[in-house]
Structure formats: structure tokens, C-alpha cells
């Protein structure tokens, strides 16, 4: 299935400052969740990064990052268990502190 990943608020520096990434996730017999996606990102997009903890710590997103599935806070959708389906947009928004 096709999923769009979007990184902003600073987390895009892990991905060459490119904010939007279209990725293809292999169809599986079980439902894809954010937890699976994090593991997939670790193994595919971040495998050579020495700064992956800017995004993922202990198989979870690091504190200060808000995850959205189709512009809805992942907490409403089940957090790590939130489902991902074909065509979804998953965003990782770093909260900003400047003023």
C-alpha cells in the first residue's frame, strides 16, 4: 500500500530536509499500525542514521513529537496501535518552542 509520510518542525533534517516522502509498505496479513511503521522507518529510512533518536526512542516517537494520521492526533486513534491504511498521510510534527 501507498502511504505518504510528512516530517516538519525540524524532524525533516533526518531525511535530507525533505518533508514529504511517498513510501510503499508491503501488504501484510495483519493490519499495519503506527508501531509497525516506526519499525519500518527505523529499518528502511533511518538505518544508516546516527541521529535516529531525533525521531524514535525505545520503539516509540521521542517526546516532543506529535503524530498525526490524516491530520488527526494519533492519541485519538489509539497511539502506537493506530491503524494505517492505503492512501493515508502520517505526519510527524516536532513542537516548536521559539518565539
Amino acid at each position, binding site marked *: 500500500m501507498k502511504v505518504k509520510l510528512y516530517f*516538519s518542525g525540524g524532524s525533516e533534517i533526518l531525511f535530507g530536509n525533505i518533508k514529504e516522502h511517498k513510501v510503499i509498505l508491503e501488504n501484510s496479513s495483519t493490519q499495519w499500525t503506527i508501531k509497525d511503521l516506526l519499525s519500518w522507518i527505523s529499518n528502511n529510512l533511518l538505518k544508516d542514521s546516527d541521529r535516529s533518536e531525533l525521531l524514535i526512542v525505545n520503539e516509540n516517537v521521542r517526546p516532543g513529537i506529535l503524530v498525526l494520521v490524516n491530520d*488527526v492526533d494519533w492519541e485519538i486513534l489509539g497511539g502506537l496501535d493506530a491503524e494505517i491504511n492505503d492512501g493515508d498521510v502520517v505526519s510527524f510534527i516536532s513542537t516548536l518552542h521559539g*518565539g
Partner: protein
Amino acid sequence: MSNFSHSLSKDDIERFSRQLILKGIGTTGQEKIRDSAVLIVGAGGLGCPVVMYLAASGVGRLGIIDHDVVALNNLHRQIMHDENRIGLLKTESLKESINRINSAVVVEIYSFLLSEANALEIFPNYDIIVDCSDNVATRYLINDASILTNKPLVSGSALGWEGQLTVYHCGEKCPCYRCIFPIPPKPEFVTNCSDNGVLGPIVGVVGSLQALEILKLIVQGTSSFAGKLWLFDGYAGETRTISLRPRRSDCPVCGQSPTIKNLENYARFCGSGPTDKPLNL
């Protein structure tokens, strides 16, 4: 009381005539604006437009907290300070700018760092709190103090080409900063405007929008951004609004059985205080 009975002066009617006639304002709304008091934490890039649009629109009393002085490298984005005020306290500078445009506004300045020692003395004197601060520890402090004193919190932030805006603790279902971010980010993952820069028009857009939501809170009692986060990517020219989770019943500060009943040590909680030099990535 009839619609035509009000306590505005003839001068006020003239001054605010183009604002009075708007849907949802009227003389009653203008009286509410005049009788309200708003506290702005941070007299920098966001604070400048917030304070000026509130003063211009007739907010009766403005409190401004900032310990810093105006520096040359502030002037590319902090449009209410100027070259002659370099070295002057930002609070004093903003007070002067406010007085110029609306001498009727009562300006109360607090020229020191907001801290767990002073926040609960200052916050109760205002109706609405505005976060224009620039560091994580102060943002948690402002959040907790707003909840302990039961005030809505209009929060803006900016970095680089991006801005964010939301309103916390505004209605039964509205979350607070801790509901969204229960654990602070590690200091080494935090970037700020001094290190990573920010563009003037970005704080202009976010600060102006903060002022708008403050006026809506004053005249209507509600904001369009309670429980919603507005994201602005100025580089791409994209704006979007996302739905945040509702207030968490287990939130340590705004939940049903709060464990935070007094302000904490926020520098310790965050691993970095408001004046610490940020670590490099």
C-alpha cells in the same frame, strides 16, 4: 440594557468605529475588550504583534513579562523595538510603543524571568494568558500556572520558516500542553530561534493570529483553535488545522485527580532552564 446603551466615550466610538461595526463585536464587545486584561509572556518576535494589535484594538490592561534587553539581532523580526532602544529592557520598549498608539491602555511590566516563584502572583490578575516565550521550561511553567489559576492560554510558537498556534485549557474538552506533551523533549533535541533563526513575517503571521483569537475569547468567550493546532509552513506556503486529542482525564495538571497542585522546578523537569545556552545537536 438596550443595545444602544453603553459606557464608551465619544472618542472611543470614533476610534473604534471600524471595529465596532463588525459581526459579533458592537458596543458590548468593545466594552468587553476595554474591560479585559491580558498577560503576554515574552516581548520578542511574537510578543510584538500580539501586544500592538491588542493595544490598538482597545484592550484595557496589558501585562508584559520579559527579562531581556533589545539587541541588534532582534530587529529583523521584533518590529516594535528599534535601533535607539538597543540595550533597553524589551518590556520598557514595548510599553513605549503601546503608549504611542493608545495612551489609554494600562501597561504593567514585569522585567524579570517568569519563574515558579512569581507566576502564581502575577497570573491571577489577568483574564487571558498568552505564550510568546522561547523555551521549553517556560512553556511548561506557563501551562501549569494557567491551569492552576484557571485561565485560557493562547499559545504561539515559531522557528525558521514555520509557526504553530493553539489555545489550551479553554472549555471542558480542551487539552493542555501536558495532555499533548506529557514528557519534555531532551534538551539536546530542542532548537530555538537564536540557534536556528526565524523569519520576521512568520512571527508576524502567528502573533497576529494569536491577537485575533484573544479578541474572540474576549468578545465571544471561545476560540476557533481550542483543541485544534494550526500549522504554518511559510516556506511551502501551506497552512493546515489538525484536531488534537481531548483533555486527558489522567493529565497530571488538568486531569480529574491532578498530582501537580503547585508549580514545580521546570528547569529540572526539562533538563534545561530558560536562560541555559542550548546544546548543539
